[in-house]
């Protein structure tokens, strides 16, 4: 297999292998806390920070971690960062911390993070692992923002708390309730799948047109 370049390591996670939209990992926070843009953003940033810190330390210490207990050590590293992140959020943005509730602690079991440690940080240099973590983290923030924007705009009629439609807008309350998370994710995945399919069909027809010419 060809070695990937640094740029590919960085960009891969953002869109082409987006952890949520393509790999469909980390759905628990994606469905649970994306009812407003603010919650989504804070959750995204917290996960980003944990992912970055964990990837850095896992790739730094990979030589000293025996294979038999690697998962335990990864989880220990991840859990430490999650706890630190939780305390920082409570100190810095207490209101959002309250709204996110148990889901901050649950970043520990977000499979995006453990997945990146196993699939990348455990086998690559510190520099590449950090790039990979940044890419995947940004990809996660992007997906969270897509979910959060759709749900808040439709469900509350606001964006980051700013009213968009005036008083006559009747909010679709279902969008900010748990079912709204499933609906939104379904619609996003369907749209992306459809666009991808169209693009592939276009490519095929362009190729056959070239052949005919």
């Amino acid at each position: 297999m060809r070695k990937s370049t640094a740029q590919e390591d960085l960009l891969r996670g953002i869109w082409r292998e987006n952890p949520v939209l393509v790999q469909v990992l980390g759905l628990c926070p994606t469905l649970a806390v994306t009812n407003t843009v603010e919650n989504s953003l804070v959750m995204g940033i917290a996960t980003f920070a944990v992912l970055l810190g964990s990837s850095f330390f896992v790739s730094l210490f990979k030589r000293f971690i025996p294979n038999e207990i690697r998962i335990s050590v990864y989880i220990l590293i991840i859990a430490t960062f999650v706890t630190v992140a939780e305390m920082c959020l409570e100190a810095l943005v207490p209101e959002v911390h309250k709204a996110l509730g148990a889901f901050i602690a649950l970043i520990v079991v977000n499979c995006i993070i453990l997945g990146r440690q196993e699939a990348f940080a455990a086998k690559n240099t510190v520099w590449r692992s950090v790039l990979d973590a940044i890419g995947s983290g940004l990809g996660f923030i992007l997906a969270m923002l897509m979910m959060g924007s759709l749900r808040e705009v439709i469900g509350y009629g606001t964006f980051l708390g700013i009213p968009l439609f005036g008083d006559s807008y009747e909010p679709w309350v279902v969008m900010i309730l748990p079912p709204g998370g499933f609906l939104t994710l379904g619609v996003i995945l369907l749209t992306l799948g459809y666009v991808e399919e169209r693009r592939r069909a276009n490519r095929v027809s362009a190729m056959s047109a070239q052949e005919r010419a």
Partner: protein
Amino acid sequence: MSDPATLHDTAHAVPPPPLTQDVSTVKLVFTLVFAGVIAGVLLVFAFHATLPAIEAHKAEVLRAAIGEVLKGPARYETLYVLPEGISATLPSGAREKDFEKVFYGFDAQDTPIGFALVAMGPGFQDQIKLIFGFDPRAGRLLGIKVLESKETPGLGDKIEKDASFRTQFEGIAAPLLGVKKGEKSAENEIEMITGATISSRAVVRNLNQAVTRLQPLLLAYLDAQAKVGTTQEESNPKATASTPNRVVPVDADLRSAAP
């Protein structure tokens, strides 16, 4: 497959590899312990770094809530609900955290406004924690504020966000009674929020329970205070503003005078 010949054949063809242990158990244990110690040390640092901000915010939230439900008191005293009644001082050796607190608010002229009380009870999803201003003599609420709730976003959380629901509690006499929207006919009735009936009812029920539980204690406390106040004025007419320091000796006098 259980044929002994087959078993023998396979065993003969491929000798099983000897069980080797790449890493000694000691090293595994040592690595985990080491990682755990480092993680623990990091957490202690993070905890101490963030604790002041977290505590300050909690105190600020409580202070703001007390200010809101008592309509801006100039100052307030923290009182403790002890088994034998409400008291301004804790029994020696007791920890502050172990007791329920009530807050006694005064305005700029040092006239008592009322008490801020915390009411906690089941809501639709989880416990709802409310703080409310209460005047025990008149039996009237002064205002309420939701401190913690996990009610349904968009429906049940209107108990926090719907100002027209909250303002109904200002100046209303307990016990409260919840009625449907538009059916308010008596002074102590609260109109429920449409679509959030269970959450609204829970608020009313929790408030009523807290009032029933705490009102007698508060009245007893006020009576005791009034007694102390009058005795003090008789014995020492020059002392107008009662300071806690003065209260103590007078209280001791009362006790010795009693048969």
